[in-house]
């Protein structure tokens, strides 16, 4: 789906984008499906800076390094993220195993406690690690949960896009996502998202996520990711910037990296 920030996004991960454009009669569901898979990279390693900025301009910076690996089902990611800064959370590490059909598994290693703990959390509309992205944004909504309508075609930053309006198919989807409507601007050539506007359950403009510096990170499989992603809450003016300082396609990562034992290896 949308390119949302991938799961661990920031903390690790990757963003998305997609593949080749198809053609004439644009079917919105087909566009959204392609969009969903365009960012599913088989494996990667990256360092990411997350900048949180309040409405009054105060900022907080977090730096992470991490790996992602796509699970066999081709939709869910497994990722590990280690914090490099700020100092009081250095070496905090987390392992997230997405499950599109149930709650994700999250383990976290706290160096001050020298222990790995399992965390249970399930709320898709909750903020992702204190950012302006929700878990749902990071994981990406399921195409089949939403009704999609092609509103129009247009251009964003010189690239031709489809503007697709997605609305929740039922009350569950609506309340668990926290959105009453999302408008996506999706590039016609590669099917990567460049912009998404969200409306809250009261129908008020809620947030905008913009994806820039798009890169075809896997030319073979036509996978695209934005190297810069910004989410801005229009109601609080709080925003989060994710910047990929480095990104490497890495399909052959060992499973060892994605274990709780690995979390304990402080760097």
């Amino acid at each position, binding site marked *: 789906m949308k390119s949302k920030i991938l799961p661990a996004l920031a903390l690790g991960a990757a963003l998305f984008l997609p593949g080749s454009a198809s053609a004439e009669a644009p079917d919105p569901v087909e566009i959204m499906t392609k969009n969903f898979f365009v960012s599913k990279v088989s494996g990667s390693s990256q360092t990411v800076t997350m900048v949180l900025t*309040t409405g009054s301009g*105060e900022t*907080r910076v977090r730096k992470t390094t991490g790996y992602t690996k796509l699970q066999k089902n081709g939709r869910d990611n497994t990722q590990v993220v280690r*914090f490099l800064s700020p100092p*009081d*959370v250095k070496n*905090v590490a*987390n392992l997230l195993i997405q499950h599109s059909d149930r709650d994700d598994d*999250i*383990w*976290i290693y*706290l*160096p*001050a*406690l020298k*222990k*790995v*703990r*399992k*965390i*249970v*959390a*399930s*709320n898709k*509309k*909750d*903020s992702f*690690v*204190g*950012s*302006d992205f929700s878990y749902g944004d990071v994981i990406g909504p399921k195409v089949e949960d939403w009704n999609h309508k092609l509103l129009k075609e247009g251009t964003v930053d010189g690239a031709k896009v489809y503007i697709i309006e997605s609305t929740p198919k039922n009350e569950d989807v609506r309340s668990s996502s926290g959105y009453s409507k999302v408008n996506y601007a999706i590039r016609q050539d590669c099917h990567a998202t460049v912009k998404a506007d969200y409306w809250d*359950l*009261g129908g008020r403009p809620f947030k905008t996520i913009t994806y820039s510096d798009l890169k075809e990170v896997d030319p073979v499989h036509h996978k695209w990711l934005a190297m810069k992603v910004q989410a801005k809450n229009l*109601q*609080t003016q*709080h925003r989060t910037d994710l910047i990929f300082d480095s990104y490497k396609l890495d399909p052959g990562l060992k499973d060892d990296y994605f274990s709780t034992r690995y979390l304990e290896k402080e760097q």
Partner: protein
Amino acid sequence: MGDRKAFLARYAEWTIRHRKSVIVAVLLVTAFLITRLGHLQIDSNPDLWAPQKHPYVVTTNRIEKIFGGRNVTVIAVVPKQGDIYQPFVLAKIKRLQDKIELLPHAVRHNITSLAANKVKVIKGTEEGMEVRPMLEKVPETPEEMEKFRAEVGSMPVYKNALVSADQRAAAVIADFKQDSTTPNFIAMNAGLRKIVEEERDGSVDIYMAGLPIIGEAADREFMKMPIFFGLALLVIMLIQFWSFRSVQGMILPMVTGILSVLWSLGLMGLFNVHLDPLNTTTPILIMAIAAGHAIQILKRYYEEYGRLVAQGLDPKAANQAAVIESMVRVGPVMAVAGAIAAITFFSLAGSGVSMVQHFGIFAGFGVLSALVLEMTIIPAVRSLLRPPRKHETARESKVGVLDRILTTLANNLVGGRAPWFVGGGLAAIVLIGAGVFFLRVDNNFRLYHKPSSEVRVHDKILNEKFGGTNSIQFLIQTPGQDGIKDPAVLQAMDKLQTFLDRQPTVGKTQSLADMMKRMNQAMHADDPKYYVIPESRDLIAQYLFLYSTSGGPQDFESFVDNDYRSASVWVYLKDDGTTNADRIAKAAQVVIRENFPPGVTVQMGGSLGQVIALNDVIVQDKTKNMVQMAIVVFLLGALVFRSLVGGLFVVIPLFAVMLTNFGLMGWLGTPLDITAMSTAAMAIGIGADYEIYLLFRFREELKRTGDVLAATRNSMLTSGKAILFVAISVFGGYAVLQMSSFAFYNQLSNMVTATMVISAFIALFFLRALMMVFKPKFIFGEQREALFLKARQAVRGDV
């Protein structure tokens, strides 16, 4: 003196000659000022009464800026049967939560209940920690319900805040923004009311409390003000009719009164002075004072007219001559009296409380408007109207009960009873004034509503069920980013809470320390031993981080700022007495000094903090105002009478009225609050007016007749009688407020009544007797002993 009279006479003649132009000019000014009414801004928020420079208020404003929480409303759902752990009750809480969040003015992240997304259950598990929204889904089966009950029980931070100790009530705490689309609390609460009504049914009771609810009820009462204003108008007109026995006599003072109100409102619009709901009764005051001056001048007109007609002047000429004569005679006195009242009122503009500032400027403009109107349009109109008919003047001057009482009083004053009056008056003043020792300062906006009112009843129930609807907050500020993560700071916050929790009236305290202890415990498999603040700063930071991976970024927003530089400790009290809150705050200072690391500041604020601030300021302001106004009144009085003793005479009623007023409040247990500040100003303004009118008239009569008894009788029957009518008019105007079910209006009415009775008594009895006893030279001149001897003999022969 002669020059001034000549000038005034020339001015009066000019006014009558150009009366049509004068009337047109005044009407044009009126029309212009009416167009300014649209610019008048009405404030309706706590800033109105909160003294903005007081440290508690400064802290409160900072707390609100960082943490939100200005218009906190508590909505409690109480099932008629059983506790809250029933699906339909929880479903109601969830619907209330969801719907309130969607209200346009809701501060979304501050809407809190068991169903709020930010209200999480933190649970220790074998493997780690589980953080989930408390009420994601309403439990259906008994097993689910029991689990839910246990989860709520595991989070002490919510007990007494979101769930009552007896588990029979659950609360939704809402917070709203105010902007131009919510000019008052009624508009602000409209959406909330609708949502709550939808949930009210036979199965539950729903109660609401909080500042917006109190404010809303007050706003509803304020909106009835036009009715009371109309009634007051009617009552004052009836009293005028009784006084003058003619339609003209009834209407003219009302014209002055109503135009004065319009002018002062227009002037406020013009000068961009705001108005507020607490000042909705001020128009009655202005109308009453304006009518008071109008009565003095009109009484004099009738008197002069009667005299001139008796001297053989034809009615038309007598009419004009009487208009001029009354302006010349009463004009200067009115100017002096009005100026003193206006200065007194304007001096309130320096108050630290906006509502009192508004009152001072509003009333000051009103008095000035009345002066201008009485010197322009009223004589112009009066000279245009047909002269009074014979039977009208006869009726006006007919000797009635009041005249007989005043004559008897005059006889007794001159006839040697004066020392008794002085002694008795002094005794009464001292006795009543002694109540001052029982006077307490307390501003409690709840008490503006009657105990049986819905607001009070709901508030009481909520106070019984939950931690308390009155709050103070401590703002903890550290020097740098992440300062709050210092274990020493969190431990100090915890100790402060432990201390506060032990105070008998404290129902609940909350802070980040509670959450931190709960997380530490959860990370140690829920072992109660770990319900403490961790010793390591890194661990604290990591817990918070951990929480952020499953909680929301705004979950702790009411406890700590984004930078972890400032935190707040919320303290809920069941008792709204400010004395008690102030005592707790002072005692807490010791705990704060002993526990917080150097460099960390802890300041107090919150809703009760603001009220304490208001009390402080009222006491200080009051004392300052009193002294300042006394000096002004004394100097002006001394100047006018060219005598220091004269100044004293004008200033005595001020002190006597204030002392007896406050004494009465002390005896009756009425606390000194912002209402009292306004009535006190009124007592000073009107009290000084009375004395000035009486002294001037007495001097004039003494000079004319050379007879103390005649001067006493004449001044009593003219100015004295007018004073009684003014007092009765003001009293009558305010008496209609007794019909209101709003305790604020009843109290105001009581205080005004007491003020009117006391100031009339002081002017007519006490000061007159004082004058007879001390025979001040500025009144009686050098021949005073001879004058009095003659007078006493005359009385003996007479009585």
